[in-house]
């Protein structure tokens, strides 16, 4: 658990992007881009599709190619009550999952150790609470392929600022190809292949890692503020490790990429091929060693995300950037605008 003091004002509710750019009448790569330049200590305003203006040949963009699952899974209790299970950590037929209402506001629903739930025809045994994160339930899923179960009975996890359900496709990046995330690795969502191809032609490299995300919220504000850490699966292949070690500047697309690369980095900042679970938290106490710059979505200062940003930017500049973004009406969260810390 990491305590984070935040003196930031709350984000005005109207700035939470309720739907993807394409459903707001603009292309996905035409969201706004807040550029935070650490060298000049300046903040300027651009558009995501102008990313090439601030990158240079030899830079390496590293994306998370994880594909989002419909990880809000419909389940039925013995009483007939319909709930939604949100698997946060999945391994070998065992889930650590949140149990919430089947519809908004998706509040937590306590289960009973020993009770049996059903997902479709499949039995799910509630083992008990996860000791370190008691809002997560240890479940034993009696299925040869729990992925198939999720794909058959799930819908995308949705938060209250997204008013209507969206198709899963709306959450995917254009390169999503490794199924396994509970929530969208949304920093890369604004990319189009048109932009990625143009950047490649400009001499910017492109490499992938995989980090399957867990849940960003346990649907309990007080609990969320305690920043409970849990393990997430990541993969850094040999080609990516090589590209990162040879790159001029490594630009992580999203905090998930930072966590994956840093989990695979030696203390001198050399990245080795790796696949494992990680619960590494990057922050001021553990600054990045391999990643040089960060492209990210805008998330609330209260979010644990923010502690990671402070590992990249000195706090006064970050505060100034956030204040400008709010003043300029930038949109926040997974369907919102972007920021580049360069």
């Amino acid at each position, binding site marked *: 658990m990491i305590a984070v003091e935040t003196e930031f004002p709350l984000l005005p509710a109207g700035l939470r992007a309720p739907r993807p750019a394409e459903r707001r009448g603009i292309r996905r790569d035409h969201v706004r881009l807040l550029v935070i330049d650490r060298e000049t200590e300046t903040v300027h305003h651009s558009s995501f599709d102008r990313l090439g203006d601030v990158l240079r040949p030899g830079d390496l963009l590293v994306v998370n190619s994880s594909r989002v699952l419909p990880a809000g899974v419909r389940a039925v209790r013995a009483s007939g009550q319909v709930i939604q299970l949100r698997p946060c950590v999945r391994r070998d037929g065992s889930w650590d999952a949140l149990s919430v209402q089947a519809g908004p506001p998706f509040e937590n629903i306590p289960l009973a150790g020993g009770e049996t739930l059903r997902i479709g025809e499949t039995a799910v045994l509630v083992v008990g609470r996860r000791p370190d994160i008691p809002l997560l339930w240890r479940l034993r899923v009696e299925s040869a392929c729990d992925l198939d179960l999720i794909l058959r009975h799930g819908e995308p996890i949705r938060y209250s600022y997204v008013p209507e359900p969206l198709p*899963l496709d709306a959450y995917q990046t254009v390169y999503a190809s490794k*199924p396994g995330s509970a929530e969208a690795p949304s920093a890369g969502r604004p990319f189009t*292949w048109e932009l990625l191809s143009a950047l490649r032609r400009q001499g910017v490299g492109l490499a992938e890692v995989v980090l399957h995300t867990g849940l960003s919220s346990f649907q309990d504000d007080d609990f969320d503020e305690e920043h409970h850490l849990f393990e997430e699966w990541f993969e850094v292949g040999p080609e990516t490790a090589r590209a990162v070690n040879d790159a001029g500047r490594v630009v992580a697309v999203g905090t998930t990429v930072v966590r994956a690369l840093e989990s695979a980095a030696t203390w001198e900042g050399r990245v080795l091929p790796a696949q494992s679970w990680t619960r590494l938290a990057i922050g001021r106490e553990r600054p990045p060693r391999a990643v040089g710059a960060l492209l990210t979505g805008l998330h609330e200062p209260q979010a644990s995300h923010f502690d990671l940003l402070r590992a990249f930017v000195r706090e006064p500049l970050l505060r100034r950037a956030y204040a400008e973004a709010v003043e300029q009406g930038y949109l926040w969260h997974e369907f919102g605008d972007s920021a580049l810390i360069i």
Partner: protein
Amino acid sequence: MNQLQGKVALITGASKGLGQAIALAFAREGAALALCARGELALHTVATECRLLGAEVLAVPADVANPADRERLVSLTLARFGGVDVLVNNASTLGPTPLPLLTDTDPEAFEDVIRVNLVAPFLLSRSVVGGMLLRGSGIVINVSSDAAVNGYPGWGAYSAAKAGLDGLTRVWAAELAGSGVTVASVDPGDMDTEMHRAALPDDDPAALARPEQVAPAFVLLAAGGAPGSRLEAREFMEKVGR
């Protein structure tokens, strides 16, 4: 015999006809297969035959026109094999038979044909091309028809869909030029299949090609990329000397 060793192929409409023949031919050449069709029993039979030929097979009963089924097909395939090297958009429907004239075509049946034969191949391609582009290799093969270029009475919906699919193929190919990912459409010619019999019950089956005679063209394409964006299977085979 091992032209497709190490490759992963996703084939739709794999339970019968040309799809089945392609699945078996790919299995013989060492490909790992993700097979999809609506008919579960027939699909599992083909999957078993492919396994007997030594292939690793994932069989996913799914309707390509259904978005949730499509996502399940793509995600299960990617999770099992890590990627897709070859996508064969083979599943297609004629719509109601006997084939009606356009004036007599039911609007819903028309839309259904467009959904299965045109929209589904586009969306499936879109789902797997992202991963192919990241790796810088892959091929999408769309199964076309001479109905795409000729106006045969009764073939309105099918013809419109296949012409649209050819158009998509050309644009995909132009947009992806130089990326390492190729997209081609193949006109397999007239074959003795259940679909052909439903459309033209009076044709003499002996005068028609068998699907297994056409499948090698798909093996060659999958193994070596496409020399152009629209190919006629017979011509292509002659060109490469088979």
